[in-house]
């Protein structure tokens, strides 16, 4: 819910700057490591879209991204399975940098 409230906060300040009175669609990218569950986000959105900022039936599209790591030792990039294996699949090293999976980003919004 807190995340959706920050979403509404961002949109409430951005929409007027682009002369948009009613938002019809919002696109979010959500990384697996954030533990933000798409169903929960959709539910929170269904409550918050009753606000005048949104057109009736406004839509939230969520793109989910898997967690990916890059090994600092050998440079291999790999999917971190089950959000858990922070161990390089190339050399077995531990120095793994998270390169994807922490996103919580508003990509765009649409409206009139």
């Amino acid at each position, binding site marked *: 819910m*807190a995340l959706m409230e920050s979403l509404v906060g961002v949109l409430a300040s951005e929409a007027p700057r682009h002369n948009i009175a009613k938002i019809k669609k919002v696109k*979010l990218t959500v990384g697996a490591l954030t533990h933000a569950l798409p169903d929960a986000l959709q539910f929170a959105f269904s409550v918050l879209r009753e606000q005048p900022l949104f057109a009736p039936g406004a839509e939230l599209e969520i793109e989910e991204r898997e967690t990916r790591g890059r090994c600092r030792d050998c440079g291999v990039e790999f999917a971190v399975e089950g959000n858990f294996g922070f161990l390089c699949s190339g050399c077995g090293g*531990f120095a793994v940098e998270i390169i994807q999976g922490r996103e919580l*980003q508003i990509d765009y919004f*649409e409206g009139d």
Partner: protein
Amino acid sequence: MQIKLGQNLLGANAAIAGEIRRLMEEKGILLLNLMSSPGAGKTTLLEKTLAALKDRLRLAVIEGDVATTKDAERIARLGIPVVQINTHGACHLDAAMVRDVLPAFDLDGLDLLIVENVGNLVCPAEFDLGEAMKVVVLSTTEGNDKVPKYPLMFREAGALLLNKIDLLPFTDFHLDELADDLGRIHPGLPRFDLSARTGEGMDRWSEWLLAQVEERRRR
């Protein structure tokens, strides 16, 4: 019309956390963000830690709580400045909440400021409070699955406190499984097995924390 944003939802929080981090560095204060699931015994652990350090460090506490002031009262009884942030039901603290209560403290007269976050391992991990270190409390009664379920929390932690070690024989918690999991997620993470209730292992943790504060002050 479509408006491209590409804005991180937590961007505003990150900016405020950055301000807090700079302020703490300037004042030489170590800011700890203490996190756990509900029922891990975090408040008792905090109380015992404060009692062990209060004659050696200038301490203060920010107490995050969903609704009650009970925990803050326990800290205040030790004679330590404490401010409570009531999140009104929110599952985590954010940087703005912390920034807003900082004026309540004499920052020039502090060495260590501990934020007791709301009991929950999911959302608090996502909100940077400007802390120098996240400390995660796990208890033996919670089972081994917390670590694989919330890897980000354990990956980002600066220390792990395994509480209720006295209850280990009565649980199905396995220390070797914990070591294994941590080895995959955060090798080298300082870990303290202790019991806030019996006091076992508390000295080692308090001394380590004291050393962290001293290192901070020397910088």
